[in-house]
């Protein structure tokens, strides 16, 4: 079972890296929007 999981992990790694990249980009966008919101309304 854990060998299968190892294989699965290796096969899927590029896809997960892309998912993490998307989440990071989304988070950066959230911070930027909050910063712009602060500048606009303070």
């Amino acid at each position, binding site marked *: *079972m854990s060998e299968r999981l190892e294989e699965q992990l290796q096969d*899927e790694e590029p896809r997960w890296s892309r998912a993490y990249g998307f989440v*990071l980009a989304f988070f950066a966008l959230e911070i930027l929007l909050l910063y712009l919101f602060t500048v606009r*309304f*303070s």
Partner: protein
Amino acid sequence: MSRIDYLVLFATVLAIPLYGLWRTRGHESLGHYLKGDKTIRWGTIGLSVLATQAGPITFLSMPGQAYESGIGFIQNYFGQPLALLVVCAVFVPIYQKLKVFTAYQYLGQRFDRKTQMLGAFLFLVQRGLAAGITIYAPAIILSAILGWQLNLTICLAGGFVIIYTVVGGTTIVSLTQRYQMMVILAGMAVAFGVVIYRLSPDISFGHALVVAGKLDKLQAVDFSPDPHKRYTFWSGAIGGFFLALSYFGADQSQVQRYLAGNSLRSSRLGLLFNSVVKVPMQFFILLLGAMIFIFYQFEKPPVFFNRPAYERAIEHGAGPQLKDLATKADQVFEQKREALSAYAAAPSPENMQSIRALEAQTQAVRTETKQVLNQNGADPRSKESDYVFITFILHELPRGVVGLLVAVILCATMSATAAALNALGSTTVVDIYRPLRSSIASDHHYVVAARLFTAAWGLVAIGVASFANLVENLIEAGNILGSVFYGSILGLFLVAFFIRKVRGSAVFFAALIAQAMVFILFFTTGIGYLWYNAIGCGAVVILAPVLERLIFRAEPMEAA
């Protein structure tokens, strides 16, 4: 509350656990009881993780926090998305590969039994106390405002959760949290819609944002490097990162949520869902508080939101003083409302200056009122801002919706408490009871033990709730407690993952020293509490290799 509100309240609060009990009937293995079954998918895991973290304090206190201090609290969540990515990439594959029931089992496999027990013990102390606060926090406010008996509220809310968590284990916790979170999100969206609708005759949403900004309620990001400021980008991004990493990586109440379902993909997707939605969700809850602040610039607010404390002060003879202050507050409110109407019609810097001056007068009257209450022994028992949202719910929302929003608070209490009890029971059985037992026992034996320990922890939580008397804002109490304990726990895990040469005794004593150091700092300094996570964790990571090299290097390797 009207009859229809009570109907909505009880129907919502009872229906979800009853459905959960029906869905999870008839499962008996330890694996199923502690880790759930394969029908739990990533959406349920995502909502379950969200519900476990949010708790009643988020929905009850956070709008009040924004009402009083603005939306800067959002920065506390800035470290969370990054921490969740680390948990997805590092923690989850290890837990799934080793097929552990609890996070601390991994410490036992990597180090030794005493380190496993130390990690479990720190978690049990912290989470046992926090579960009590989770029940106490809404109970004190609901009982005060609705006239319910405090101990009865605590026992009913806690008792019901104990029953369904003991019976259904992890599967029922995840399942009920999914529906409870849906009710919570719907209820908060309705509250947001109502406040914007109620503002519309006086001021547009755009103007409301401008006024809230000018009155310092909308500073979401503050780049100040001052470590004594509670909410800054840096304390949120760095301290918040360590808090979130400890919480999601090493707190069994969360680990159990995302290991439910036994699939690596579901665990990761559930966590990524949280890293995307958490900051926007908190933003809207805080913005709701800022909009309630604007609403109460046009509708007269109570002089003091904690009405029961106010009435106690009147009974203690402070009536004349409070009446004078109320008259003063009314006069300032009328002047401010006129100034705001003038600003809404024709915005000008002069108008805003007079609004700011009048707002300062309002705050001065509130401070004076608090002083009168304290002088007259009307102990408020929790911060006034905690009463803002519930006051708005009870006085400004339509019938039926009031019941829904009170149900939101109780659903949040039940979901967070259920996750905590589930984790406390599992950890006690897997990390304390099973290692200490000399003979081998059947799966059924451990399921019964897990149920008994879950019930026992429920009673402990009710006991803590019955004797708790909070000195800080309810949001702060939970986070401070977590920050004091989490650093050392996270340090144990980071050493386990990344410093291969360190063995059990070195990391064990490093964690003990780090925990003592955090306690000393907590009681002797005034630094922002989020930093304790980084300090505790950093101390373990630095001390463990040093102790290994200087003291424990000569020891023979222990069998894992």
